[in-house]
């Protein structure tokens, strides 16, 4: 029967938008992405320390790049994904969207902190200072405050659906900061160097350096998926605790 077939396809596509269906999938994703993150991180660090050559200008201090650049990418990318879920929650009013946005924020803040931390440790030997108020560093610090603001606003709002909405508006407003971070090194005269990798030209660094950086970037992707999935499971349980399926799940966890 063609009609039923169409309905089945639709329901299977939207099935994972419901917290009850996503809950077990999140556990599987967390497990496998977490495992992939460990393997990729080991491979990336191995290449970073034992295959990539010493930098002619910066010596060994440049090896911070294998964390710094992937962490900075991740800090921006997680924000965009968080804003996407926030927007989806505002437009489609799906319950899972707000939960995903909340689940991503702390991991995004963590990568923002790591980008700033490793940047300071790289800045000291290369620029002679831990910190400067230049456009790239300042906009990245604003990103950290946007994550904190999102989490604080959500936590401070009693009603969870209203909290989702208020935090979503904040997340979407802060989205304007992402191109500012990305293009800051072009728009302003910054102490921070330009992009190491560009979409329009071939990488200017050694192939092994590029490979190491990409492996760590992939590892951070996998880690972020795993962390967000793990965190959203606790959020789902807490928010859906009145439902029959959560009660059944809790009984099964004896």
């Amino acid at each position, binding site marked *: 029967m063609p009609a039923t077939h169409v309905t089945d396809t639709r329901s299977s596509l939207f099935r994972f938008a419901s917290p009850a269906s996503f809950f077990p999938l999140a556990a599987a994703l967390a497990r496998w992405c*977490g495992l992939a993150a460990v393997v990729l991180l080991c491979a990336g660090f191995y290449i970073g320390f034992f295959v990539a050559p010493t930098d002619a200008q910066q010596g060994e201090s440049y090896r*911070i790049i294998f964390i710094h650049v992937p962490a900075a990418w991740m800090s921006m990318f997680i924000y965009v994904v968080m804003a996407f879920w926030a927007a989806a929650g505002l437009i489609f009013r799906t319950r899972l969207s707000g939960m995903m946005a909340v689940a991503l924020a702390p991991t995004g803040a963590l990568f923002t902190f790591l980008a700033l931390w490793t940047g300071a440790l790289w800045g000291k*030997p290369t620029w002679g200072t831990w910190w400067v108020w230049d456009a790239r560093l300042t906009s990245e610090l604003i990103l950290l405050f946007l994550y904190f603001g999102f989490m604080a606003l959500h936590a401070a709002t009693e009603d969870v659906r209203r909290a989702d909405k208020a935090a979503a508006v904040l997340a979407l407003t802060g989205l304007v900061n992402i191109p500012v971070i990305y293009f800051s090194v072009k728009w302003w005269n910054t102490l921070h160097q330009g992009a190491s990798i560009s979409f329009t030209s071939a990488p200017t660094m050694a192939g092994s350096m590029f490979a190491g950086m990409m492996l760590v970037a992939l590892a951070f992707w996998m880690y972020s998926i795993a962390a967000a999935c793990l965190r959203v499971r*606790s959020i789902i349980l807490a928010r859906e*605790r009145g439902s029959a399926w959560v009660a059944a799940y809790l009984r099964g966890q004896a």
Partner: protein
Amino acid sequence: MSWGSVGEFLHMGGYGLYVWGSYSVTLVALALEAWALLRRERTTVQRLRLETGRAR
């Protein structure tokens, strides 16, 4: 490979403090978050089990 010995590797051409300061904090931060998240799921399940047990 750029290293002749373990000591040379740890020394990082004089940049040991900066390089290891970056790698150690990153690894500790990620491990701590993962540990906290696994713990959070366990405590959430325990807390909700207690709550629903009382409600019944």
